[in-house]
């Protein structure tokens, strides 16, 4: 029966090509617009570490003694002493410190001019905690952290730029004036967003595209990085002006992030107690004024709190769906016209014994077919839309690709939309009174 209805639907669509084309184009444009924006949304709002984001937490304490009022969120980063104290306590399964800065890079044995790059200074747990993939070599050791070793891990991008993608483990890289030995090269690694440096989203007024930048060019041990690039560090904020710009170790500034990995719920609540205990102790020492103001947010909570998805992307998505709704109303109207124009034919079918359900099914098949055709058009328009997104000068432009799930969603959405649009007209058509129609024939 289905194939027969399909045949009928094809005939009916061919009978009025203009009307069919109008409906297919309306659905295709609506689907194209909404799937383009939905794909961008899907890519930007996804979980960067789906397997373990539930065990990763971002710790915050309120180190700013100058702030008045109680219900204020603690600063997004910590001062050097709080961060290092909490890190060296080693109370979590894994813990890592995060500081990023700009630095001059040069490969002494490669004939290229120096370039400015980004450097992440972190501790050895960074790599296993965030599942960072290596192409060559591996991470440094915990001793390297302690010894302030002059070693570095570089990104695939930088390896391609400086060494043409060769296995560059053991080669020398000059960071500012210091030579470091490369111990590892990452595989192309592009977390979306670059979650471990996300902060300050609530002050960004929705302009958060830079959270989707590529990971840093160079990763060095925390202790070494702070020495190599001393004087060039940027603070998240300072409650007093530091005496020496860019040198933040003893400065009244928040500039270090702390991530911890906690494997179970008990460990999480233990760590919360530990944080609170630390803050209370610091208050007793007179360093903190807001001891009870600590936070331990799960990775996804932290991303939500920072509103990582740029507000323009949300706005575009809602706009596209409003447009799809208009296309839907349009299709309902046109389908209604199309089905009721065939009232006579439907009357004959009903008089010959077809049930209302059969007429309803026949109409829905036709609507579904329009949806499928619209889906193909919508898929092509989505590809075009994503191509346009990729040409934008935004940090996330290179991420905009259609994955399998979104490809399937395109067609599912198209067919569901057209079935929704077809339901009401089909119901109307199935209620055509056969007697009345036969009389007018």
């Amino acid at each position, binding site marked *: 029966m289905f194939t027969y209805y399909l045949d009928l639907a094809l005939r009916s669509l061919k009978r009025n090509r203009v009307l069919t084309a109008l409906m297919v184009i309306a659905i295709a444009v*609506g689907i194209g617009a909404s799937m383009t924006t939905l794909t961008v949304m899907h890519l930007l709002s996804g979980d960067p570490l789906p397997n373990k984001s539930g065990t990763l937490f971002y710790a915050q304490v309120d180190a700013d003694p100058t702030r008045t009022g109680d219900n204020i969120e603690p600063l997004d980063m910590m001062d050097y002493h709080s961060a290092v104290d909490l890190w060296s306590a080693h109370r979590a399964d894994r813990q890592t410190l995060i500081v990023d800065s700009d630095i001059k890079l040069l490969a002494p044995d490669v004939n290229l001019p120096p370039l400015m790059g980004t450097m992440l200074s972190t501790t050895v747990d960074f790599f296993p905690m965030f599942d960072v993939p290596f192409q060559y070599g591996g991470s440094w050791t915990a001793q390297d952290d302690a010894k302030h070793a002059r070693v570095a891990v570089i990104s695939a991008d930088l390896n391609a730029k400086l060494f043409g993608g060769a296995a560059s483990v053991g080669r020398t890289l000059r960071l500012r004036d210091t030579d470091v030995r490369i111990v590892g090269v990452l595989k192309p690694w592009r977390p979306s967003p670059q979650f471990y440096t996300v902060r300050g989203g609530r*002050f960004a*007024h929705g302009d958060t595209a830079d959270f989707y930048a590529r990971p840093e060019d160079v990763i060095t041990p925390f202790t070494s990085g702070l020495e190599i690039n001393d004087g060039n560090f940027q603070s998240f904020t300072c409650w007093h002006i530091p005496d020496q710009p860019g040198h933040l170790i003893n400065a009244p500034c928040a500039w270090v992030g702390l991530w911890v990995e906690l494997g179970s719920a008990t460990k999480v609540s233990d760590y919360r107690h530990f944080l609170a205990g630390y803050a209370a102790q610091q208050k007793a020492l007179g360093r903190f004024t807001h001891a009870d103001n600590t936070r331990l947010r799960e990775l996804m909570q932290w991303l939500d709190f920072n509103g990582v998805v740029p507000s323009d992307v949300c706005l575009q998505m809602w706009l*596209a769906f409003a447009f799809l709704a208009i296309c839907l109303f349009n299709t309902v109207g046109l389908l209604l016209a199309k089905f*009721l124009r065939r009232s006579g034919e439907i009357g004959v079918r009903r008089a010959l014994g077809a049930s209302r359900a059969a007429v309803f099914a026949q109409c829905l098949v036709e609507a579904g077919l329009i949806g499928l055709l619209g889906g193909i058009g919508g898929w092509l328009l989505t590809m075009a839309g994503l191509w346009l997104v990729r040409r934008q000068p935004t940090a996330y432009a290179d991420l905009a690709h259609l994955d399998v799930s979104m490809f399937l969603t395109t067609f599912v959405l198209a067919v569901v939309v057209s079935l929704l649009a077809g339901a009401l007209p089909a119901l109307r058509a199935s209620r055509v009174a056969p007697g009345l129609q036969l009389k007018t024939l």
Partner: protein
Amino acid sequence: MQIQPILAALRKHRLATLLIVLEIALACAVLCNACFLIANRLGMMQLVSGVDESSLAFIRLTGYDDKITADLNARVLAGLRAIPGMQSVSVINTVPFAQQRGASGITTDAAGQHFGGVVDFYTGAPGSIEELGLRVVAGQRPQADDYRSFSNFLPTDARVLVTQSLAEHLWPGADPLGREFWMDKYHFRVMGVLAHLAVARPGGRGANSADWSVFVPVQAGSSLGGSYLLRADPANLPRVLREAHAVVTKVAPDTVLDRDESRTVSALRHTWFQRDRTMTGMLLGVIVALLLVTALGIVGLASFWVQQRRRQIGIRRAIGATRADILRYFQTENFLIVSGGIALGMALAFGLNLLLMTHYELPRLPLYYLPIGALALWALGQLAVLGPALRAAAVPPVVATRSV
């Protein structure tokens, strides 16, 4: 033209009428708000930076040590000044639309209790204020001894110029000249008021604070250097900038030229507003597609009704109705339907605006958008229905006597 029979006929097609009314209502709501969003973005893009953008370019060097800044400044300034066509060069920390360099919160009391907002500090060496083309509307320009040398972030005590917009925010309705403000232990006294000087990232901290800047006259030295303001005739500027790139790589080979920032101020402005331009383009695209889809919907349904009513039209023509009567019938019918859609759409437009106001920093939709949106939709409806209505008017009276 009697409206009664039209309403009676529409009552027979309640569902189709309702659909088209809803479609128009939604279109009206989206249209009004999309236009308003476009107007907002365009308003942002028209921002007056207060500087002579077309004659200015910026050069930024990185990757050198603070100790050599003074020497670097001397080498680079000498090199840049030798470029033919260069009108002037001075040292400044940043320019509007380049990276933000001196943003900080200020207070209007020494104890730091009365927060005045986050402002951009521009630190400029002698000559830079004239080179930028800043207009001083009250007070005076900095004199030679106002340019202080400093070693950290800013001079600890300075006479500064603030923008009108910042002065009005800090001291509403009062004369800002001679007023003081603080940033931690740094003290500032207002010596002059600038007409405009946009912050480096206008809109980045909200639309209201786009012009909250302070110009601090300073001497170039270890804490200010590596970034230079170039001025040339707009016609020469691209060439001068190209040569400037070549000069700095020659005179300061061990530094890194920041190519993203070392561009003309107009180019920096263009890049800064790229996001708004994209959004405006997308909104325009949606508006066009929306109007097109709505029009097609009206055409489709009107054609269906015309075909359905061929006999009735024939009968009306046979008993004396003119073509103009038939034409006017369909036009009036469309007008009524669109009017219904607009009435509902205005309420929806306001609802949508309230939603946008809570999620985006958008002001209230001005009332005049509604009649403009209504006029646009009425015009669209009349245009869309014209084709089917003309076809209806062309139905010959003889149809009445034929059976199907």
